[in-house]
């Protein structure tokens, strides 16, 4: 069974005039994804979760560390082998209207797949393949084919993108905030669709800022803060027994439907303040060349709390 594995992955951006400063977007992240498992990357903005998604999809380069698919380092893939990689791993993004080229019809995304991956397939066979994909995502071909993107709803567009990914026999799907721009009543349908696909053996990296969604759909959860993992493990353990102050704060701040916001207890408040002070924005940016990565011995390692549940130690300096 192919495994998607991230090993001490870091991403550094050059910012400022002529690249004088550096921004550490992802620090030393390691985890793996199995087919048939949903793993959530949960974090607020600036947490690096989308960057990790882009790196897995080879849309952004890895600065340090490796991402391997079935043991093969994806950084080395070129043209032919890269195409093969895309047969196994695809992505769907947040804004359905941005994911389609607005001047072409929506189903052109299927044609692109056909041209690249199924060049010799006869028309009739292709059409039945498309029909099968559309059925798998509960879309009516008559309603969605031959239409421009602006004539379809956000939910339909996102499902079309999932159908597109299913045309290839993918093992992994990176879903980056795919339902945050959809209406509440359609969100759950797309989410349930992901659940069905998982049951059929698809491995999903579910990126979101919404803890309720992560909790609903994922087997394992990774909480990210400022590019680093602060807690990870089986979902019910991370949510049921949160260890890191950041995780606790997130859970306390999530607006729930059946309980009011909790007042953060003073001890937790103090821990959060200290955490923010120790990892200030100044450390987030550094002059080029003087960047210190956690693997150089300056970060917080993950410590096992219980089986299948790790949390970063909070440094008390």
């Amino acid at each position, binding site marked *: 069974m192919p495994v998607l594995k991230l090993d001490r992955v870091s991403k550094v*951006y050059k910012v400022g005039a002529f690249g004088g400063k550096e921004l550490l977007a992802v620090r030393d992240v390691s985890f793996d994804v199995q087919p048939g498992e949903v793993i959530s990357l949960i974090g607020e*903005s600036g947490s690096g979760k989308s960057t990790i998604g882009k790196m897995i999809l080879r*849309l952004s380069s890895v600065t340090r560390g490796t991402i391997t698919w079935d043991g093969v380092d994806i950084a080395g893939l070129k043209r032919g082998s890269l195409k093969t990689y895309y047969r196994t791993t*695809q992505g769907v993004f947040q804004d359905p209207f*941005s994911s389609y080229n607005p*001047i*072409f019809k929506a189903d052109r*995304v299927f044609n692109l797949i056909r041209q690249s*991956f199924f060049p010799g397939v006869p028309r009739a066979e292709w059409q039945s393949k498309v029909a099968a994909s559309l059925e798998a995502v509960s879309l009516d071909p008559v309603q969605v084919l031959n239409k421009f993107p602006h004539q379809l709803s956000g939910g339909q567009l996102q499902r079309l993108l999932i159908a597109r990914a299913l045309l290839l026999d993918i093992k992994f799907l990176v879903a980056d905030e795919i339902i945050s721009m959809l209406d509440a009543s359609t969100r759950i349908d797309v989410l349930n669709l992901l659940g069905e696909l998982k049951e059929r053996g698809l491995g999903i990296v579910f990126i979101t800022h919404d803890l309720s969604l992560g909790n609903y759909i994922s087997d394992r959860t990774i909480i990210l803060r400022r590019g680093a993992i602060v807690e990870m493990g089986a979902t019910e353990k991370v949510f049921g027994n949160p260890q890191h102050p950041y995780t606790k704060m997130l859970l306390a701040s999530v607006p729930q439907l059946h309980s009011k916001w909790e007042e953060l207890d003073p001890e937790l408040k103090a821990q959060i303040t200290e955490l923010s002070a120790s990892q200030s924005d100044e450390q987030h940016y550094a002059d080029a060349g003087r960047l210190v990565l956690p693997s150089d011995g300056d970060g917080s390692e993950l410590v096992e709390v219980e089986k299948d549940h790790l949390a970063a130690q909070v440094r008390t300096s």
Partner: protein
Amino acid sequence: MSTSGKLAEPPDLVSELEPPVEPDAKHMSGFRETLHFALRNRKLVFGLSVTLTMLLFAIVGPFLAQHGPLDYGGVLSSAPTTKDGYWFGTTMQGQDVFAQFVTGLRLLFIVGALGGGIAAGIGMVVGFTAGYRGGVVDDILNMITNVVLVIPTFALLLVIAAYLQVRGILTEAVFIGLTSWPWAARALRAQTFSLVSRDFVDMARMSGRSSRQIIFKEIAPNMSSYLFMMFILLFGGAVLIAATLDFIGLGPSGTISLGMMMQLSVQNAALQLGLWWWFVPPGLAIMAVVGSLYVMNVGLDEVFNPKLREL
């Protein structure tokens, strides 16, 4: 990288409106569909008709002219008449205004196409490259663009004119092309930037497309209307610059253009003397061509952008 706490933009108000049904658009292929809308757009049809009419006139006109544009021999300063083929009258020196007009019109289109074309070509290369590659390449190309932008073109042309005794239309067109590309490059770079960050470019990459394919098949077609319109604007701009240069006496030697006609008519006090047929036709022609090109441009935007069609 966002540090502003912004996660997602809620759906735009426009999505509250029902997308209207497009009549008869279901069974057409891409190109035919565009044509269908193109023929229905009044601005496009109007602009195109005027431009094509003038173009036709420019092509056929010189064959109809009874005299050469620079030939003397007609009655001096005569108003338009049907006698001897002096349909547009004569200049103060007895030259055929009609012949001059059609020759000038032809030159107008040549300068516009050539000058505009060169500017568009350079602008595209610089703009696409800077927008797609970004980084250091972008910084360097930006510097070059800025330098060319601030060169005082008139001063430069005066200097060149002083050295070149004989100037052809080609020289004029090349010069215009080489000095008017910066704003096109800037605009294209900005457009390319905004398109490159869109998710459909990432989708294309994940569909196995190479960078070249993405630029030409995804980004450029998205800008096809923009490119077309830009060319039209550069065309119009080249025509206007050429007319201005001609008007101040820096026109091509050995021939006559519309701008030069206007220059000569002013020099000979045509306005005061009431010789309207000498300066009105060239002025109107320039206005008509450039104006109709701009109107055509607005129409084209509506045709190319499916969203704008319904509004």
